[in-house]
């Protein structure tokens, strides 16, 4: 508790407040802007870590993360084109609401849903994270390796429609992660004698290449020539009747969102969908669904925001990113030489608690700033696309060059950017690749450390209860599709795991 108060003291200094405000405004703008998601936004901003102290940088990144989710719902509602995967579900009810002239109410339901979900989620971080961190201190190399393998398997199996394409993407990421000197023996791997490659390929370069360059090239190949016309909207507000319908979905959201955010199951996609289904089932006026039911906006938005909080718990306490944005934030930690994980709460407790405090501040700022600013944000949708994507390429180049002031990095980024283009064209998901780049080297370290302790015997990987439990979960995930095939066609198509009651 005292630590949280200290965190507030750090986060409430004028400079840090300013960073939080810049973060949420930038995040919202980015969420609203088509084509840029929060992962790309944080990736493009990584270069500022070279010139900024870590606390301020992370306060800003956290603001961008929440703000980006927040802004994504605006495009969902006003354009019917979700900017973020988290906002896909919002479009189903939000856009019909806007078309029926209830856009202001939809935006308000989304904004307050975000605030509620985020605050509850962040409270859960305060309660759970130190607890998890305390217990995670005891877990050893075999456990870490098992958890990382779980992350690899989950990210390739749960996400996307094609498992083989997910695995291909993961392997591409692992290969990129292999480049450089082996950390334990100093042997060169995949460097081909190049001094530039001996240090490995900088994570910033990879992240910016995959998220920004690949995306810009892919959009360029299929740029929509005819612009959308967003539905005009006034200042968001809610009537008493709306409030009566929305407060329960707002409170139910975190129950679904938080646990899903914390496990490597692809972030907000599954929980927002689950929240939608739940709200639809619980709703008393079912005939309104599909034509603009406000519960279908309130629930999923609160869920999305809480899942972002859940993601932060796993990232901060275990060093395990479960979404693309968290993966890029992890890269930012590594830039500062800080390793998120169980020890983070001991070694960097000032930074962590300031970050958590700034989440509360950021959410409040989001609500206060964005309710009145909504009509302005809607105007951002009209930005000329050539400038938008030219700007993305421009800042991507600045970022990659600034890493080492080396043209070679620009060329590496170009090649990986082309790879990102091909991956988008052929349906290879991006998330497994970035997880592979970031977690691959760490997983190898943990595995080799575990095997060193056991003197090379493979039992060294499974000699703790936790690691065995994790491998069981992995086996279940791996064989789940097989079981489904054998169990036959009678089972309903979406038997999602029963995780709702995990919440504290």
């Amino acid at each position, binding site marked *: 508790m005292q630590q949280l108060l200290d965190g507030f003291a750090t986060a409430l200094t004028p400079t840090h407040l300013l960073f939080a405000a810049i973060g949420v405004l930038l995040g919202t703008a980015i969420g609203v802007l088509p084509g840029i998601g929060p992962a790309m936004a944080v990736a493009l901003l990584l270069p500022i870590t070279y010139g900024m102290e870590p606390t301020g940088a992370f306060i800003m990144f956290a603001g961008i993360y929440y703000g980006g989710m927040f802004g994504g719902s605006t495009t969902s509602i006003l354009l019917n084109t979700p900017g973020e995967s988290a906002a896909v579900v919002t479009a189903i009810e939000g856009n019909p609401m806007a078309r029926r002239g209830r856009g202001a109410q939809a935006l308000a339901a989304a904004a307050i849903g975000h605030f509620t979900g985020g605050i509850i989620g962040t409270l859960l971080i305060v309660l759970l994270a130190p607890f998890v961190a305390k217990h995670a201190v005891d877990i050893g190399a075999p456990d870490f390796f098992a958890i990382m393998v779980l992350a690899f398997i989950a990210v390739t199996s749960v996400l996307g429609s094609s498992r083989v394409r997910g695995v291909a993407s993961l392997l591409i990421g692992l290969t990129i992660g292999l480049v450089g000197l082996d950390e334990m023996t100093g*042997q060169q*791997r*995949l460097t081909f004698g190049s001094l530039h490659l001996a240090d490995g390929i900088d994570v910033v370069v990879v992240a910016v290449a995959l998220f920004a360059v690949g995306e810009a090239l892919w959009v360029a190949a299929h740029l929509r020539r005819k612009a959308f016309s967003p539905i005009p909207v006034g200042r968001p507000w809610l009537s008493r009747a709306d409030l009566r319908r929305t407060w329960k979905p707002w409170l139910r959201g975190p129950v679904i969102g938080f646990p899903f955010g914390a496990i490597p199951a692809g972030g907000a996609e599954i929980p927002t969908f689950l929240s939608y289904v739940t709200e639809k089932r619980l709703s008393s006026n079912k005939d309104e669904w599909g034509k603009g039911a406000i519960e279908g906006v309130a629930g999923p938005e609160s869920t999305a925001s809480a899942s972002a909080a859940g993601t932060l718990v796993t990232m901060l306490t275990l060093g395990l990113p479960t979404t693309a944005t968290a993966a890029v934030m992890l890269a930012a930690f590594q830039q500062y030489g800080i390793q998120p994980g169980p020890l983070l709460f001991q070694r960097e407790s000032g930074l962590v608690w300031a970050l958590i405090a700034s989440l509360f501040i950021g959410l409040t700022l989001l609500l206060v700033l964005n309710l009145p600013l909504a009509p302005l944000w809607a105007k951002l949708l009209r930005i000329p696309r050539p400038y938008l994507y030219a700007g993305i390429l421009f800042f991507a180049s600045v970022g990659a060059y600034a890493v080492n002031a080396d043209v070679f990095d620009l060329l590496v980024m170009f090649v990986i950017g082309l790879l990102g283009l*091909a991956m988008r064209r052929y349906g290879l998901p991006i998330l497994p690749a970035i997880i592979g780049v970031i977690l691959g080297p760490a997983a190898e370290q943990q595995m080799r450390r575990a095997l060193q302790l056991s003197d090379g015997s493979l039992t060294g990987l499974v000699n703790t209860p936790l690691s065995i439990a994790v491998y069981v979960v992995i086996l279940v995930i791996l064989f789940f599709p097989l079981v489904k095939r054998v169990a036959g066609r009678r089972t309903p198509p979406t038997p999602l795991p029963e995780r709702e009651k995990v919440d504290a």
Partner: protein
Amino acid sequence: MNAWLKERSELGVCAVLLVLGVLVLTDALRIPTDFAQRGPVGPKAVPIVVGTLLLIVAVLLARDVLRGGRGEAEGGEDIDLTAPADLRTVLLLCGAFLANAALIGVVGFPISGAVLFWGAAYALGSRSLVRDAWIAAGLSIATFLVFNNLLGVPLPGGPLMEVF
């Protein structure tokens, strides 16, 4: 034959995976392990696993494609998948990008960055050339000042900045 290949262009992805796999494996086998090895598992193990898996996935993906499986192209707000891929735009963008890489050491970032932005905007269909040039110059110089002078991240100023 041409149409057959075009329909199955995803086989190109398999080829890339295959090449990557071979590359990773040959590189791994070349690593000497007799000295400097700490612990039972050396620097070779993981590359060998990754390389082998790359080869396996390349084959599995090829099988999937030949059986009619297709990767789903990624959608987005500004993406119109009904139109065919616009190669000219992509090539022009690549040109603008590489121009920046080639020029940055010679003329400095303020100029090369402006060339990149202007070229990319042109490639993406902007035709107000003069306005674009002003925006490009303004953005480039502002970015240079923010990074170089405010954030302390050095960017090459080039001859233009030496004048001041």
